[in-house]
């Protein structure tokens, strides 16, 4: 039975086919699906990580299948502490749409939500690349996006880092008091509290 101090909710958005579900499956199950076994797996994944000795349960919502339906996806933004904006480095179009995804997140999510830009499919041959990491980095900087990483859900490169670094950023905000635990912040306290940050102690435990 494991215990955790916080539940943090993430949302993954981006164009269809950029690898949102694959990133999630790679992170939660450590496997890559090239359409060989399961297509969708889960609507959301959970995994425990530890940041600064705190057990954090990440609850990650995948918006696959709803990319063209902006009003529907809006309901997921509310109450997300972390938002991963994913594009495919070999599809320029998916990068150009990031500004629309960013505008959606900024409009509907909590103002303190940690936004992360993710260029997926970094395992692909350099000749297929249509977005340089410099350009994406510049975009992130210009638009006030806290983090930018290139990942490969296929080779698992940087996948762990994306999720963990986002959690570290959120955790910093919890510590500094920017985020408080409630329904709309996307952070809830876990059932077991050892932290000096804890605001309440809850009985019972689950794993």
């Amino acid at each position: 039975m494991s215990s955790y101090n916080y539940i943090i909710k993430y949302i993954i958005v981006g164009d269809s086919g950029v690898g949102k579900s694959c990133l999630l499956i790679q992170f939660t199950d450590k496997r890559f699906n090239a359409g060989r076994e399961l297509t969708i797996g889960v609507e959301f994944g959970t995994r425990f990580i530890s940041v600064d000795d705190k057990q954090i349960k990440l609850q990650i919502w995948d918006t696959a299948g709803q990319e063209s339906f902006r009003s529907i996806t809006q309901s997921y933004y509310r109450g997300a502490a972390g938002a991963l904006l994913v594009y495919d480095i070999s599809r320029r179009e998916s990068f150009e749409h990031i500004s629309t995804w960013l505008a959606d997140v900024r409009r509907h999510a909590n103002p303190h939500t940690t936004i992360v830009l993710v260029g997926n499919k970094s395992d692909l041959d350099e000749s297929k690349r249509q977005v340089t990491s410099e350009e994406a980095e510049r975009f992130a900087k210009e638009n006030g996006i806290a983090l930018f990483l290139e990942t490969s859900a296929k080779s698992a490169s940087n996948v762990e880092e994306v999720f963990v670094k986002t959690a570290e950023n959120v955790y910093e905000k919890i510590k500094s008091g920017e985020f408080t635990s409630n329904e709309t912040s996307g952070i809830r306290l876990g059932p077991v509290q050892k932290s000096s940050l804890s605001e309440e102690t809850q009985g019972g435990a689950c794993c």
Partner: protein
Amino acid sequence: IELYQGVYTPLTRCYASRCPGDQTCYSHSCPRKFVSDTKRDTFQPATVTPNISNAPIPSSPSLPAASTLTPPPLPPPLTIKTNTTSTRQQQHSLWIHSVPRTIVCTTSLAERHRQEALYELIQTEIDFVGHLRYIKKCWIEPLSLQPQNESIVKHVFWNWLDILHVSTRLMEALVTRQQEDHRIRHVGGVLLAHVGQFEPFIIYGSHQMVGKFYLELEKKRNPRFAQFVKETEQRPESERLELNGYLTKVTTRLGRYPILLNTILKWTPAGHPDHELLGRVLEILEGLLLRLDGQVGQATHQFELEQISDRLLFNKFSAQQSLVKTRIIEGGGFSFFPSLEAHVINHLLYILHITYI
């Protein structure tokens, strides 16, 4: 096939660099996990059995299924409890593990892919119906015992039982099709007959946002309701997911059908009757999602206007007015003067002063 991922004694170092060592970490195979699990009894090396679904598709037909090869050691092995909610659902979610090996061996690779995709559609539909039933049994029914909950049950769950009805019928039809043969021949007809009944998904989806609002409001206003929510969410049946996680499943599911069906379609040979039928099902689903999206947008807009109107002391909007709200400032608020909000509604700019009375 990997039979064992490893035998970990409590002294084994965890592979995760972030593992604190003296207590367990996020890794599902962290040796410290077993220390805390076995402390109650005695220190025993924990044997880790592989998750069946992680096994690759066997290339050699002579190998028996992984599950039958797992020896029953004494004391019984501690099977890893994984931290992913997905794993539980995946345990029996591969077609190749559900049929005799002779069937697998006599099936072409493309057909195996098609069967796996069909199997996933059916398994996820069974899971979905299971979640719909859970809401009925653990939330709607107990809450409905108290007449004073009538309004909140209506708002939060809306036409949940209609969706349960429609989806149960689809699930049963798919399972019947599955039981006819080890290899499903076609599903196009079944799906076409049922997606036409999916109207309740739209009705639910367009109200979902309002339902969520009332749920949060009721939790704040009614401590007994809040207590019920807390207790129910901690029940084992809730599988560690809060109510809101279940409430979004209906629209999520609608969006997942096209992904599942496109995968089936990809592996369906051109002359197969499903080719045309699935194409038609996909068109209907696309239409449903588009309509839902439009209605969600409209409902959200209407609800936001009502929220503003409710707070106005005079000049309340009338329900008949067709109002168009243009947000001129994100969230309507001024950061330098937080008690002011500005909205353009139709041809008027409203600058509202917020007072608490």
